[in-house]
């Protein structure tokens, strides 16, 4: 970590604002491209296997447990194939803003901005709590 940029005085406390902006921008695009690709692969498999079946969205039944819990979705990919792939892609999409917040925690800590590190850690905790536990029955 002793590249020329890091020895500049203004980056003595971690990344500069512009560097943080660039990393966040790339992180968001990477997550988006990755998730869209996984969803598209799942879509191709799903439509090839089930394309001619009838739809049933008029009555709400809710998704099976395999599509409700984060820890189940990645293993469900092996059994449900197309839809499992799509769900994994959608999870990647949901994870993208979470990864952005997690990176912000790191950036604020390196800038020794304790107030904002605390604010960001709180938001990250709320997100993780919601995605893994809230409303699970």
């Amino acid at each position, binding site marked *: 970590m002793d590249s020329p940029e890091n020895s500049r005085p203004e980056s003595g406390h971690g990344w500069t604002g*512009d560097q*943080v*902006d660039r990393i*966040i*921008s790339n992180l*968001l*695009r990477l*997550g*988006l491209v990755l998730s*869209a690709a996984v969803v*598209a692969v*799942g*879509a191709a498999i*799903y*439509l090839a296997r*089930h*394309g*001619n*079946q*009838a*739809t049933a*969205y*008029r*009555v*709400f*039944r*809710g*998704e099976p447990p395999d*599509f*409700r*819990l*984060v820890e189940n979705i990645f293993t469900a990919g092996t059994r449900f194939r*197309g*839809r*499992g792939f*799509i*769900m994994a892609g*959608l999870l990647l*999409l*949901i*994870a*993208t*803003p*979470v990864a*952005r*917040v997690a990176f*912000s925690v790191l950036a604020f800590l390196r800038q020794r901005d304790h*107030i*904002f590190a605390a*604010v*960001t850690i*709180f*938001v990250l905790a*709320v*997100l993780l709590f*919601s*995605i893994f536990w*809230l*409303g*699970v029955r």
Partner: protein
Amino acid sequence: MTILGLTAVVLGVSLAAGFLGALTGLGGGVVIVPFLTLALGVDIRYAIGASLVSVIATSSGAASAYVKEGFSNIRVGMFLEVGTTLGAIAGAFLAAVVSPPVIAVVFGSVLIVNVFFSFAKHSDAPSPLPVPSDRLTARLRLDGEYPSLRGRVAYHVRRVPAGLGLMSVAGALSGLLGIGSGALKVIAMDRVMGIPFKVSTATSNFMIGVTAASSAGIYLHRGYIDPGLTMPVMLGVLAGSVLGTRVLVRTPTRHLRLLFDVVIFLLGVEMIFNGLTGKL
């Protein structure tokens, strides 16, 4: 309808919605729920689940561009996300308790209010610098600057507590209705906190993904997010908004925006009507 047929129809409409949403700045997600429920008879819970996920996709795409250009105020966004995430969780829990017709009526009302606000003028000029920042703004170092043709323009941020309060409401509506609540977020920053319009829009886009992700978890656990239905909505809105952003520079958007406003207004009226008569 077969799955293939439904996928094609939803993909086409989502593409158009994402395209118009990017051109007009209203976001495409707002017409997805009325379309799925009114035209295709999809249960509103599946519809808001699919819409919410597509909102994360458009937000990530737009935010990626705005952040790189230096328009988003990341500190303001991060701080206000405390309000939007907590609000979104409350909204997502409400969505599970409130009956679908009530959700439809609230949704319709939000659409109509949205249209009225889009006609009102926004403040183009940044708040004049001599106005001193609040103590809280100074302590949190929220003031920022943005690039313009005449170099970087500095601006002050005011009334943070009021902004935070409005953001909680925006989050709750997002969680209840599966929308981005971009319009309300922009109003909170532009009108209340005195942040320049362009920065407000860019920061709103930046925040929408995190707001939506916090209610997406609850939607997921309740079984609202169906892969077969969400897939064409997400891919369509995403592709449409990418296209819309590309042609944005050379298209006059005034008439398009008016047309889109009329469409949204009519959808709002129909949502309320169908909610009240119990058809949704």
